[in-house]
């Protein structure tokens, strides 16, 4: 508990242009115990995935998704990039704050689900011209699965707050 709190505080202390991050105590369903090292790795890997998402959608480069996304999450994001390229559009996502809580560590240890109340900006550019920026609040339901060296996002889905 103490380590998670310290972890949250550390994340919040990032540079000013970094998002503020609050990590709530896990509200776990399931019999599997979640080690603090695992929880920290999962949350950090998830936050990293926002950077990958932002770069990939801003530069229209699906290869930038590979480190942090897998399965249907990667497929959907890559399809969006393809649609953006076809439309001559770029989107820039900038996450301003996260409020993360781990919800489920599946009994066999092959998936972790978390919820994140995110505040973020979306800027749309068409033909190189910015059309505007929107500030949004969403609750993301995310499922991560372990890969060789890190947890990768397999389900990445927002719902309105």
């Amino acid at each position, binding site marked *: 508990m103490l380590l998670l709190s310290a972890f949250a505080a550390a994340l919040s202390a990032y540079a000013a242009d970094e998002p503020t991050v609050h990590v709530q105590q896990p509200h776990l*369903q399931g019999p599997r115990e979640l080690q603090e090292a695992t929880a920290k790795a999962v949350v950090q890997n998830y936050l990293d995935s926002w950077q990958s998402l932002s770069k990939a959608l801003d530069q229209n480069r699906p290869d930038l998704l590979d480190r942090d996304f897998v399965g249907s999450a990667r497929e959907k994001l890559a399809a*969006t990039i393809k649609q953006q390229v076809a439309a*001559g559009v770029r989107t820039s996502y900038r996450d301003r704050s996260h409020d993360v809580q781990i919800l489920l560590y599946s009994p*066999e240890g092959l998936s972790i689900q978390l919820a994140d109340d995110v505040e973020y900006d979306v800027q749309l550019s068409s033909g190189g011209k910015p059309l505007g920026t929107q500030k949004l609040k969403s609750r993301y339901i995310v499922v991560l699965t372990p890969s060789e060296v890190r947890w990768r996002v397999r389900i990445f889905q927002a*719902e309105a707050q």
Partner: protein
Amino acid sequence: MRAQIPTLMGSLALGITSALAQTGDLTLPKSIEAGAAFSIQCGGSGKGTLYIAGPGQMIKQDVQLGGSIEIASGSLYNAGQYSVWCGSDSSAQTGSINVSPAQKPSDVTFIAKPSRLPVALHNAITGSAYVFDTYGNLITKPMQVSFQLSNPGTAPQTRTVETRNGAAWTQMDSATREGKAQFVALVGDVSSTRIVGQVPGDPCSIKMNAKSAGNKIQLVTDPVRDCSGNAISDGTIVTFTATYGAEKTTVDVPLKKGIASVEIPAHRGATISVASGVVLGNQIRWAQ
């Protein structure tokens, strides 16, 4: 990464946002179900462009401003929150729309572990299920998932679990009889099946018999079974140990057709024992 976003551009973009927000009227539903048709009213006149942008999908469409813009069924189907821009080159109106998963389940991702385990273990088999709609969206609305573990010749174990945020899990006991069990996760009329192999557990007891074979002793076990009566798998090692004075002889023998058999030198007064794993069998003192 964050440092690469120029502050000037951010300010410009925010300025544009403020300007755009003052132009025209954009009317759109706050939320739709994935794949549903809907319409948008975008103020103004003449030709314009509609953008619907989210991480899950991007739609760009030429539109006639001032009228109703119809978005056909099946166009916007990935669940999530989308930003909407609509207008001409000089002005645009903005809004957002939430796409929720369809309510009908179409797919279940089901993970059952382990795929092979000993019989008669409590809560040793786990199953986790995630429920998706026809577009691959996680259905976050609570749904009933029925887990059923069926073993040949015995009544199935059934648990019904309500999903939370699209996920449900359960634990089951392995059966007392060896064999392949069908583990099914069922949501509505959608199911997913996994096979779980249940193998005999450790030997429950071992009994050997000894008889003379010339100048040797032939040792043969009774069929070795676990505590549920299942025959222990062939290949399982049984260890015979004969102690005669200071001399000790150990022979490892794999089970073959459920029994272990070996011949060892006969010594009057030898003590012979048998074991497999942590299970110790009977002891014989050779008197001939």
